[in-house]
């Protein structure tokens, strides 16, 4: 029983002082330095006198496990005691250099060697310090799990940091041979796990600064619309509402709690100038796509005679993929603290650098006056590479003169995204006398992410993977892409164009296999016989690696035995693969599905084979494959964003559904052993799943579903046709 006296008397205003608030920036600051000196040969590493090793990650953590794998790379070369390793997050401060972007599954590729080198540098300094102390040749000393060892003598790193810190860092410290790895290559649990399961982990949404106000922004529901007028009288009267500010994206209501801000926003009376897209609809967009496909696009790949080789026995098919929202679990959020001479941003961002120009423009400050701090990201998937939520927070804080946190509602998050482009595809293909593909024509259209975001790249740069880089040996090929702008703002979504192109190409390949009367597995393998590596765009394709994952996935799934056996009605198995050349990773997946009477697809089992080069953390690689598969299944079976009267028609998880636990298939992941440089794993698990399911549906029903999402409606319609 509690008594009156037990109650801590609190009100909104006094709380900050009466409650033990979490110290802010727990994700960034290392513990205070104990006496006895530290060894910090770079801004990313600090070894304390008590032996604690603190490593700063320069890539954002959004679930892909990068904080743990970066720390593993550095700790490996340092020969650190893993139980003493902590990870913190680098900010955009100059000492950390350019953080670049966290995306494209590039982090491992770009940071593995630099992080190892930093670890090796410190290790060499510690060895030198120990050798000097023992007055022996440094060649007889070695590093071992947090100690420098010579014969029976051992000395802990912590005891050496002071002496080591006075030494000159070596220029080219030797890196270990992979066979001597002791941390890299083992299953290491994520370092953030304990904070996550206790609720201590700090996400952007969780941060609070003294005097901070909470903001909710009403944006024009029509893309490109502008504010005409706002009557804020009623909103101002809502208890807790402090300020109403017009910002470039709409009207921001600032209040002393998120709830008050949301209520204030409800009470706004706004007139919008809806602009040019007031009557836009997805139906219209698809009509435009249809029209665009009638004329040739830009030829982005040509082999042999191209379309001229198709012949009159070619088969033709049309595929479509919808626009999609990211729907990260944590809705967009940004916190800015703009002071007269300094601006601090606390935002879960995949691209702090990409927001700098905008922040400078709003604040008129120099880069050195601006610092972007990065808490954990409650999911990213490309959405958080954008700067919109940062810009809004900066505009609000600049005007209000206090720190402001802009919190998107789920509706805001779904309706004000940078969407995965919708695309329409026309495929034609023909076989030679022996049943091998002879000619392949793929023409497709959709908006360009590069153009929409004004990237300094050709517009097709962001749209071609899985289409122009098709790995299979087909003597005559022509791939054309045609730009169709739409009212949708578009952006990077997990796997970018490889979230749609492989659905189309791997499905159509299955159509050709069927036409040839061949097993889809044998059909694919026969097209990957030449072992020479070849250049595809900027990247290198190694057909043998793709063949290997296809064979491995098929073998582990029991493909051949399945094809021979009899199965219950509605059951089928399908295979698909994708060479994710941009990040050096090859994945094949086999899906076992059941098409139910009501048209629903139940995916029972997925077998995944992945070759990502050196497997830094197999535990995380398996997690990322599982993640890509589940994310891909949500898109394959459920996801679709539509536009009506210029507005996004969906507003949450009820009409933009996600796969649930009960529908999650059993997933087995098999990792190819390899010494090749490590590749990325955040995206490559996704591309093969939709076509593997589509191919399995075909195997189960004899019906080809050429449209994502593969909904019960489409499946029932196909069954009747």
């Amino acid at each position, binding site marked *: 029983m509690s008594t009156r006296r037990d109650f801590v008397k609190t009100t909104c205003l006094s709380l900050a002082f009466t409650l033990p608030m979490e110290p802010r920036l727990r994700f960034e600051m290392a513990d205070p330095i104990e006496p006895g000196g530290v060894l910090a040969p770079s801004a990313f590493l600090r070894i304390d006198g008590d032996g604690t090793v603190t490593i700063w990650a320069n890539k954002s953590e959004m679930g892909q496990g990068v904080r743990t794998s970066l720390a593993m790379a550095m700790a490996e070369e340092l020969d650190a005691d893993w139980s003493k390793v902590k990870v913190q997050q680098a900010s955009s401060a100059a000492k950390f250099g350019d953080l670049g972007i966290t995306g494209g599954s590039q982090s491992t590729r770009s940071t593995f060697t630099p992080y190892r080198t930093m670890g090796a540098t410190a290790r060499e300094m510690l060895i030198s310090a120990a050798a000097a102390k023992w007055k022996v040749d440094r060649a007889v000393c070695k590093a071992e799990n947090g100690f420098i060892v010579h014969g029976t003598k051992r000395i802990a790193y912590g005891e050496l940091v002071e002496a080591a810190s006075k030494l000159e860092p070596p220029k080219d410290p030797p890196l270990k041979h992979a066979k001597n790895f002791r941390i890299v290559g083992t299953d290491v649990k*994520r370092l*953030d796990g304990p904070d996550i*399961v206790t609720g201590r982990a700090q996400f952007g949404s969780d941060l609070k600064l003294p005097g901070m106000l909470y903001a909710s922004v009403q944006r024009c529901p029509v893309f490109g619309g502008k504010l005409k007028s706002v009557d804020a009288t009623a909103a101002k009267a809502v208890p807790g509402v402090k300020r109403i500010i017009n910002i470039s994206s709409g009207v921001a209501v600032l209040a002393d709690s998120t*709830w008050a801000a949301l209520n204030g926003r409800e009470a706004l009376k706004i007139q919008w100038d809806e602009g040019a897209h007031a009557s836009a609809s997805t139906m219209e967009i698809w009509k435009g796509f249809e029209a665009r496909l009638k004329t040739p696009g830009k030829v982005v790949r040509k082999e042999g005679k191209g379309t001229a080789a198709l012949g009159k026995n070619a088969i033709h098919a049309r595929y479509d993929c919808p626009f999609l929202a990211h*729907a990260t*679990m944590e809705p967009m959020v940004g916190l800015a603290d703009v002071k007269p001479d300094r601006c601090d941003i606390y935002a879960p961002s995949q691209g702090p650098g990409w927001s700098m120009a905008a922040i400078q423009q709003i604040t008129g400050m120099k880069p050195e006056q601006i610092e972007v701090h990065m808490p954990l990201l409650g999911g990213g998937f490309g959405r958080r590479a954008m700067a919109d939520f940062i810009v809004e927070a900066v505009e609000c804080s600049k005007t209000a003169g206090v720190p402001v946190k802009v919190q998107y509602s*789920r509706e805001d998050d779904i309706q004000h995204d940078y969407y995965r482009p919708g695309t329409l595809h026309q495929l034609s293909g023909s076989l030679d006398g022996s049943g091998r593909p002879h000619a392949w024509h793929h023409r497709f259209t959709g908006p360009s992410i590069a153009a929409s975001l004004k990237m300094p790249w050709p517009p097709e740069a962001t749209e071609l993977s899985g289409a122009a880089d098709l790995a299979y040996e087909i003597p005559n090929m022509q791939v054309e892409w045609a730009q169709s702008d739409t009212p949708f703002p578009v952006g990077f979504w997990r796997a970018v164009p490889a979230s749609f192109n492989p659905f189309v190409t791997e499905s159509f390949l299955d159509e050709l296999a069927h036409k040839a009367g061949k097993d889809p597995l044998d059909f694919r393998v026969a097209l990957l016989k030449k072992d020479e590596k070849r250049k595809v765009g900027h990247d290198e394709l190694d057909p043998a690696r793709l063949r290997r994952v296809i064979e491995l996935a098929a073998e582990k799934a029991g493909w051949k035995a399945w094809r021979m056996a009899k199965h219950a009605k509605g059951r089928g198995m399908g295979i698909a693969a994708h060479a994710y050349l941009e990040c050096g990773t090859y994945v094949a997946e086999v899906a076992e599905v059941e098409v139910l009477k009501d048209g629903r697809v139940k995916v029972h089992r997925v077998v995944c084979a992945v070759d990502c080069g050196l497997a830094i953390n197999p*535990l995380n690689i398996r997690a990322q494959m599982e993640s890509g*598969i589940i*994310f891909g299944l949500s898109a394959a079976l459920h996801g679709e964003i539509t536009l009506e009267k210029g507005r996004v028609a969906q507003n949450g998880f009820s009409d933009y559904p996600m796969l649930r636990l009960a529908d999650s298939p059993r997933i087995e992941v098999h990792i190819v052993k390899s010494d090749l440089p490590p590749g990325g794993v955040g995206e490559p698990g996704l591309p093969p799943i939709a076509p593997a399911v589509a191919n399995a549906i075909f195997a189960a029903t004899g019906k080809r579903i050429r449209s994502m999402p593969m909904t019960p409606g489409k499946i029932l319609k196909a069954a009747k046709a």
Partner: protein
Amino acid sequence: MSHVEFSVNGFSKAVEVDPDMPLLWVLRDVLGLTGTKFGCGAGVCGCCTLHLNGEAIRACQTPIKEVAGKSVTTIEGLSKDGVHPVQKAWIEEDVAQCGYCQPGQIMQAAWLLSKHPHPTDADINEGMAENICRCGTYNRIRCAIHRAAGDECATGKEA
């Protein structure tokens, strides 16, 4: 504004707030307990799951006036130092990816285990049906629940 008294993680609290303010925002914005997450505000994602008088509920759908005199347990109070069997199982299975949904998943799972000490896969399907994980950690969640119950998990193991 109303004066509402209730207990959170064993501590008595009193707040002066809009009686309709959801418990979620009282915890996060007023009391500074941010372990309970906002995912949808509509009762459909499970991010804000916590225990009210021992039952798993959605804090975003629970106005503070309905909490008066009741006892709330959030992820911060599930155990001292993360030693609840569900938290330990979550670490063992390395469930979390981004981690944002996990406080809600853990609170839902702890409640499920209080009702079904040895849940079947079907019990887990049903009990966890309303908790979304956008990172797709579902199979590990399933295994962690079996593990917390001291049972075997077949998911993801080779057949």
